[in-house]
């Protein structure tokens, strides 16, 4: 086997991509969270530096993958500290940065709003006066902006009669749960190089998980045919959702249009913290059961703080909503989910996409209910979990379920039944992008080789290796005989995007079709897979996910009760894979997802002060390190004849509630993430103060 170019240093990433004659760009950002731009003074910029200001892009329409709410440059109104108001281009990156600092921006500050619930109040500052839904492919699901408010999407599930359900419940628990913003923190920052060619085409080389959505959006922005925009995607040094939809590509293209030169832009680490983050959330859960422990009703309201621009926030809120019922039979269920603007940096896709936030709330609530019933949390889950043929509150009939086995494996890993003290469980399901379409072409190349052309991007998740392994298996050759070039929208067929753990499941199946076609044709083959679906946004009825990602987790902890420090003895995640294609790759995906889950659980949070990020570096923003993750183990559950299940994200969401429930078994009740030692100590104080019935009353400062 040839050595992995990532290990030898030979790998070229987006940051390494250059175009001859390129200029380097730097951005000028708002320093206030909300304001009116009075003037932009560029007189101190050295001669020979190109400057892009709002007037240069005044001819370009609003854009946004789901809501058209963003301009290429912010114009006369800035909506978050970090909003880009101007851009410069110079022969070197250092000159560009110096020139950007020489641009003086005068802004009159407006009142800002920094919390999703406060942003829904009538007297809250309004971020966008008009809201229109994009015609991008990513706006496929019936987006419901509430005009005249900061709500850019609301989604509902109505299943059964929730009031009647609660009326019949013997026991009801409720709580409010919060999760903070978080950074994706990929090693490689956002990096783009682009140009307009002599024949008027736009060529962009960029790190993106969404090449076709990006092509669509750039074409619409610059009034071009999609075929005249070319997006090439080198491997990325990590993304985790950060490099989705249009990020810095539109600014690069606008600068290229103005200067007539290729433009390269690489963000620095500080800028990463104001480019795209994870949605902070507030999730209220009310859950009722019979005295025997049968769930009868659940009502959930979620607020997803999408920041100053919607990005894919409507989609995140919707996924937060349809993950809210959880993997349990519920005769009556209602969900209301909102995506809400605030004066903070935009929030978007983040590994686990909305599911993590509502799973944290729901799985903690399950243990609160078990406590009130005087029942084992394990038995409560056993009694209610979904099995094949059960109906989900979206109306979907469950198939290929594995919850019972996953739960037992998790419980066994920590010997839960022998003694549940200091131990916690969680059981989760999350959806895959649906509707979804994947297509792929396979051709013979040279004497004994093949080339696979598809839009699946390499984020570091090992998609190339997986495609090689699958193709080799189908074509009866060695994986090294399969070449998988960088996705290039000029040369690959359409694919929805490389998100939501869908590539091995969707592109893998398309590849099987394509390989069979090649074997028949002898020269080339094409395969396409399409999964229909989608939900009615007003009732939540339809198909949320063509298949469900399923996992459980068990945690065993001890707590230093004087300091609140949580020590992990074990965190174990069984993940249902259906069938594993690339075993080492699948292991790494599970491990990585668990490690991110651990950071989410214990200490990751972007810290804001009046909309300003105060910890925009990797010293003040902590991610887990090698010494933090020693307790994590996982297993991949396979079944004979089962289809491939995606697993790139699945092991992240179960980790926080497993740890939270382990703490709850010690009487330490946490409602907010991360579960910092300081919050744990406050919860120990509350325990000492006596039992509290409602989480609402236990809100921390």
């Amino acid at each position: 086997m040839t050595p992995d170019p990532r290990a030898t240093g030979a790998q070229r990433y987006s940051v390494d991509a250059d175009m001859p004659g390129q200029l380097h760009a730097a951005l000028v950002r708002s320093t206030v969270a909300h304001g009116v731009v009075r003037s932009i003074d560029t007189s101190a910029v050295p001669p020979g530096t190109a400057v892009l200001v709002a007037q240069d892009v005044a001819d370009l329409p609003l854009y946004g993958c789901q809501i058209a709410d963003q301009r290429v440059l912010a114009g006369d109104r800035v909506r978050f500290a970090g909003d880009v108001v101007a851009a410069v281009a110079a022969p070197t990156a250092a000159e560009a940065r110096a020139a950007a600092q020489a641009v003086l921006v005068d802004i009159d500050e407006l009142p800002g709003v920094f919390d999703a619930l406060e942003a829904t109040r009538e007297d809250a500052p309004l971020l966008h006066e008009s809201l229109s839904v994009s015609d991008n492919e990513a706006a496929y699901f019936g987006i419901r902006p509430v005009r005249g408010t900061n709500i850019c999407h609301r989604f509902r599930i109505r299943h059964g009669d929730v009031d009647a359900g609660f009326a019949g419940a013997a026991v009801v628990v409720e709580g409010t749960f919060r999760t903070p913003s978080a950074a994706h923190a990929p090693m490689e920052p956002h990096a783009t190089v682009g140009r307009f060619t002599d024949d008027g085409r736009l060529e962009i080389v960029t790190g993106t998980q969404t090449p076709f959505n990006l092509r669509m959006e750039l074409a619409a922005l610059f009034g071009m045919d999609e075929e005249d925009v070319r997006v090439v995607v080198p491997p990325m040094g990590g993304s985790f959702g950060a490099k989705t939809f249009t990020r810095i590509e539109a600014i690069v293209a606008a600068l290229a249009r103005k200067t007539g030169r290729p433009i390269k832009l690489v963000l620095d680490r500080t800028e990463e913290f104001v480019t795209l983050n994870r949605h902070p959330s507030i999730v209220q859960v009310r859950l009722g059961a019979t005295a025997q422990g049968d769930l009868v009703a659940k009502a959930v309201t979620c607020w997803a703080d999408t920041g100053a621009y919607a990005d894919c926030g409507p989609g995140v809120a919707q996924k937060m909503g349809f993950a809210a019922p959880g993997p349990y039979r519920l005769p009556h269920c209602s969900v209301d989910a909102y995506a809400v603007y605030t004066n903070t940096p935009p929030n978007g896709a983040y590994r686990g996409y909305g599911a993590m936030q509502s799973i944290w709330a729901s799985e903690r609530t399950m243990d609160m209910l078990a406590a009130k019933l005087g029942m084992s949390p394990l038995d409560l889950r056993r009694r209610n979990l979904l099995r094949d043929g059960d109906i989900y509150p979206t109306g979907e009939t469950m198939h290929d379920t594995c919850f019972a086995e996953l739960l037992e494996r998790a419980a066994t890993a920590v010997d839960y039944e022998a003694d549940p003290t200091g131990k916690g469980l969680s059981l989760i399901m999350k959806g895959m992008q649906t509707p979804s379409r994947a297509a792929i072409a396979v051709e013979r190349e040279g004497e004994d080789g093949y080339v696979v052309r598809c839009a699946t991007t390499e984020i570091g998740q090992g998609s190339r290796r997986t495609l090689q392994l699958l193709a080799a298996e189908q074509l009866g050759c060695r994986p090294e005989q399969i070449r998988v070039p960088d996705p290039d929208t000029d040369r690959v067929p359409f694919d929805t995007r490389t998100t939501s753990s869908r590539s091995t499941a969707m592109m893998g199946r398309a590849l099987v079709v394509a390989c069979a076609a090649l074997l028949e044709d002898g020269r080339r083959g094409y395969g396409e897979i399409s999964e229909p679906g989608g939900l009615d946004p007003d009732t939540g009825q339809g198909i949320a996910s063509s298949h469900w990602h399923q996992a459980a987790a068990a945690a065993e902890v001890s707590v230093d009760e004087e300091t609140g420090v949580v020590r992990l003895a074990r965190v174990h995640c069984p993940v249902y894979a259906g069938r594993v294609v690339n075993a080492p790759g699948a292991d790494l995906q599970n491990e990585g997802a668990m490690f991110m889950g651990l950071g989410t659980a214990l200490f990751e949070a972007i810290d804001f002060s009046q909309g300003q990020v105060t910890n925009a570096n990797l010293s003040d923003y902590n991610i887990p390190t090698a010494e933090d993750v020693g307790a994590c183990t996982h297993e991949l559950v396979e079944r004979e004849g089962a289809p491939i299940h995606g697993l790139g994200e699945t092991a992240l969401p179960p980790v926080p509630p497993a740890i939270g429930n382990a703490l709850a078994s010690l009487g330490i009740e946490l409602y907010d993430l991360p579960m910092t030692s300081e919050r744990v100590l406050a919860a120990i104080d509350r325990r000492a103060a006596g039992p509290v019935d409602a989480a609402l009353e236990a809100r921390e400062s």
Partner: protein
Amino acid sequence: MRWHAPADLEEALLLRAVHGDEITVHAGGTFLGILMNQGLIAPPALLSLGRVAELRGVTIVDGWLRLGAMVTHLEIERHPQIRSGWPLLARAFSVVASRRVRAVATVGGVLADADYASDPPAAMSALGAQAVLRGPRGDRSVSMEQLILGYYTTCIEPDELLVEVRVPPAPAHGVYRKFLSRSSEDRPCVTVAAVRGDGGLAVVVGAVAERPQRFDDLCGLDADGLGDARQRRELAEAYAARLEPISDVRGSAAYRRRICAVEVRRALEALAA
């Protein structure tokens, strides 16, 4: 930006004397790199001490440990004589950040940066270390309390260099505790360095305020220096009460005060054991 890399200390001192504030000293570069990457400082010139061999020595003279300013954290952590003679020091330097950082971060750098959220200053203070500052007016030797004046502020004059750190013979007993509230490679939330010897008891709390905190007037206790369990608890609580802790992403002021009471007590218990 200009990069000066003198080959010896004399040249380095000359550059410092000529350029003063216009030249920023670069030792290991771990902290300077963060500040420059974040755009917090943009020095017109850097004075690298990387080639200055005179600043790399570890020697013991009359029982005192002498550390050249460019001795790295990793060298202190691993040096057999430091580990046996000044175990508290070896310990404090071994828990800084990650091995990659410790391999380049220097003792001179960490003291001259005066970053409140670091381990070595409190340890050096508890051990009674002296920093040797050299400039056109000659050498002067200052205590940690004289050296570190506040956040990122020292008494080092623009024409001086911190060239050496001298640590007296270590007291018989010493404890260093680093309290982390987040990841294992985080900067400390609270640190405690405590020593007991012929000179009595010294307790220094770090990372909680603009400079290491020591309240020698509280450290009387009994003749043995450590009292009984109740006295140790009371001393820890008195320390916590006297502090004026800061709030940052690693913990609020109120939390730090509580942790201080716990960690000082635990340090004293370890000393007494």
